[in-house]
């Protein structure tokens, strides 16, 4: 039994890596669409099946090996392990990956074989990194996989690298998350410095000994990393731009899996966070602010993917807030449901974009009749996101809100409630405009037909089914985690649902019923509208920081180096040259003058020898060296006598 669970663990993590290696190393495989995608999908199928098997067995196992040998400190150990949290993440990652990879078969149909192969190579690498990240048993190992998923995100955002926006977005995503990782890296090293280990179980045992301000500091720094990866305010700016990548990538990486890595990290390190509360309070505030901010920004977006991206930011904010309030379980449940319904939404949006070649919601419209299937799928996703019963989002979001309410974080509760209202508003704004709108596209073209082959719809339907039924499994979910679902009965129990429905109604009034004109409202609230459209100037702040801080410092350093440090060198060189031109005139060319030079040298030597007793402190070996020369002379004389 023990051996099998270990094998299964390896079977979860390793197949994507093998697929990556095969595709990466053998160009012939990569250049063929069938082999590259086939290998990748086969690998992720094995992972998914093994994950399901593991969930069924629910074993407790680990694999440990030494990575860096050290003698004066304990060596750095790596390992993979399984516990319920890991298993659920395994399930999410492998299932969504599978869905997305199958979906991509059609989505990327028009790509050249080479970039198609590249896509699947990166997908495999991502699946491997994410699964490895989830099961990591060492903080350093977590960091390694953390960066690797970041790399995959970079590579996949920049998948269409010839588009300047895509390459810019890729680099931006990498930079911003990397900035957070600076904090993570330092925090990690600090924790290591205090405990001498990266190994999580050992770390948890030793952590209570760490003095408190120090632990708080390290955890703050680690939270910085989590904020970068999970797109929390103020490091959320990369996620909307990341939508430049192919939509399946957004569904997988920027909705379901990678962006929740930050939440997962905090969850994983929860035993540490429980020791000191300040970072958690910080996390809660950040989460709450992000949730509201993301939702507000989503209202004014016209790009369907960006709406979804901001909604991801907002939902991640929910999770963070819940984590900060101590509700690790509810946060995780929301992560679980969100992964499925958000990827469903992305994939549905993707199938529209794929057919219509635009992502502007105003260019779409009247799609409900053309593609009822996608409409239904999108509706399921939207309802789930808005938190309407009986979809999974309702249960998880309800749990979070109730948790906040019961724990007495009333202010946060109210903000999150407002956010829920805005969420359903912007979601249904998009829904009504896209599927029932008039298609006010600027080009004026009639909306084309939406083609959805089964490779696209099947993954979506699977996700939709999960979305519909996952909510009812809350009890099982918490049991599986070893937690107890808190049955809360207060008078506010139905408030979130009411708020959501109100939001939908408002969206209907504006965009379907057209009883209110959104333009008039925008004009009357123009300062707010401007602020929203400018994304609260966050991007500008970053651009400013990039241009004037980083580039500015680089100009200072570069200029200093080139023209001052190096200038000084050249200055010395130049004046040496000039001085030599002056100095060479003392070479008169008269042989006798040189002889005077020799005599002066003799004089100098003479004075040196006279002064040598006074210089002896510097040459304390003088006697020694004299003896040495004596010896040589004596030896010479002896030879002579022979």
């Amino acid at each position, binding site marked *: 039994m023990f051996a099998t669970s270990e094998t299964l663990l390896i079977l979860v993590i390793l197949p994507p890596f093998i697929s990556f290696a095969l595709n990466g190393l053998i160009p012939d495989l990569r250049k063929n669409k069938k082999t590259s995608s086939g290998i990748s999908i086969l690998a992720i199928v094995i992972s998914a099946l093994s994950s399901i098997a593991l969930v069924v067995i629910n074993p407790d196992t680990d694999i440990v090996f030494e990575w860096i040998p050290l003698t004066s400190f304990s060596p750095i150990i790596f390992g993979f392990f399984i516990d319920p949290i890991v298993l659920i993440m395994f399930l999410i990652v492998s299932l969504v990956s599978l869905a997305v990879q199958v979906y991509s078969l059609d989505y990327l149909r028009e790509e050249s074989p080479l970039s198609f192969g590249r896509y699947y190579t990166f997908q495999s690498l991502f699946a491997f990194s994410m699964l490895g990240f989830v099961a990591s048993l060492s903080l350093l190992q977590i960091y390694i996989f953390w960066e690797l998923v970041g790399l995959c995100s970079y590579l996949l955002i920049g998948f269409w690298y010839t588009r300047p926006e895509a390459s810019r977005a890729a680099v931006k995503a990498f930079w911003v998350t990397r900035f957070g990782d600076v904090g993570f890296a330092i925090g990690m090293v600090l924790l290591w410095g205090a405990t001498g280990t990266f190994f999580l179980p050992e770390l948890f045992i030793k952590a209570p000994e760490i003095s408190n301000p120090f632990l708080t500091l390290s955890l703050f720094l680690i939270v910085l990393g989590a904020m970068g990866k999970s797109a929390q305010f103020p490091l959320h700016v990369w996620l909307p731009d990341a939508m430049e990548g192919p939509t399946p990538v957004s569904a997988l990486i920027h909705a379901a899996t990678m962006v929740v890595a930050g939440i997962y990290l905090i969850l994983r390190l929860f035993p540490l966070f429980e020791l000191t509360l300040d970072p958690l309070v910080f996390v809660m505030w950040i989460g709450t602010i992000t949730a509201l901010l993301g939702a507000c920004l989503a209202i004014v977006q016209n790009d369907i993917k960006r709406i979804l991206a901001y909604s991801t930011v907002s939902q991640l904010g929910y999770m963070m807030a819940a984590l900060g309030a101590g509700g690790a379980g509810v946060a995780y449940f929301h992560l679980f449901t969100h992964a499925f319904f958000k990827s469903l939404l992305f994939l549905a949006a993707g199938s529209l974009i794929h057919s219509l070649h635009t992502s502007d919601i105003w260019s779409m419209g009247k799609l409900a009749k053309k593609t009822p299937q996608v409409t239904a799928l999108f509706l399921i996703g939207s309802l789930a996101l808005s938190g309407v019963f009986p979809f999974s989002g309702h249960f998880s979001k309800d749990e979070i809100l109730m948790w906040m309410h019961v724990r007495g974080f009333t202010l946060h509760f109210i903000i999150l409630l407002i956010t829920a209202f805005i969420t359903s508003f912007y979601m249904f704004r998009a829904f009504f405009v896209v599927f029932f709108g008039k298609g006010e596209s600027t080009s004026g073209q009639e909306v084309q037909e939406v083609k959805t082959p089964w490779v696209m719809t099947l993954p979506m339907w699977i996700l939709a089914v999960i979305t519909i039924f996952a909510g009812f499994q809350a009890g099982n979910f918490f049991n599986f985690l070893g937690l107890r679902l808190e049955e809360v009965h207060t008078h506010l129990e139905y408030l979130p649902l009411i708020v959501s429905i109100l939001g939908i109604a408002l969206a209907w009034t504006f965009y379907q019923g057209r009883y209110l004109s959104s333009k008039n409202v925008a004009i009357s609230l123009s300062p707010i509208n401007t602020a929203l459209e400018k994304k609260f100037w966050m991007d500008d702040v970053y651009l400013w920081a990039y241009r004037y801080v980083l580039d500015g410092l680089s100009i200072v350093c570069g200029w200093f180096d080139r023209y001052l440090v190096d200038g000084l060198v050249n200055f010395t060189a130049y004046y040496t040259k000039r001085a030599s031109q002056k100095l060479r005139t003392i070479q008169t060319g008269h042989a*006798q003058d040189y002889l005077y030079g020799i*005599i002066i040298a*003799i*004089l100098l030597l*003479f004075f040196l020898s006279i002064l040598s007793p006074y210089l002896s402190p510097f040459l304390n070996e003088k006697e020694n060296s004299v003896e040495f020369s004596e010896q040589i002379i004596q030896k010479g004389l002896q030879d002579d006598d022979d």
Partner: protein
Amino acid sequence: MHWDNIIFFLLATGLVSTSVAAVSSKRILRSAIFLAIALLFTAFVYLLLGAELLAGIQILLYAGGVITLIIFALLISEKLGDQKLVETHHGVIPALTASLLVLFILLYFTWSSPRIESLSNSRSLSEYGVSRTLSEVLFSTWVLPLEILSVLLLAAIIGALVLARQEKTKGEEREQ
């Protein structure tokens, strides 16, 4: 005062005075002649020091050969350049200062060195035939340097020939 001391002082006086004459004479030919005499005096000093062979060679090679060479060269150059061999000095005072300084340094080291003292108890070499021993040593222990020296002399001859060669060869002064 021993008799060889008297001879030494006489020789020394002669050597110094002819040397002074050699460097200070206005006419370069005369300088050459004085140099020859100075070299002869040195040869006698060598005799006094028991170096008979060396004295002989000094007279033959130095006073004879070298001086002849110099005088020949001077005469040739006078013919060539049509210049009077009147010699003037320049920078006498710095030259004098420098030479006196060097003299002082040399003397300082000599008189402050304990080694010279230890060496200055003179030993006579008259127990054995100096010239004979010298020749034997020269052609046994020192034969390699001797051969190298002969190669050097050959090289010097060829070098001198090449350097001084003219359209009309005037190499007859090379006797070495």
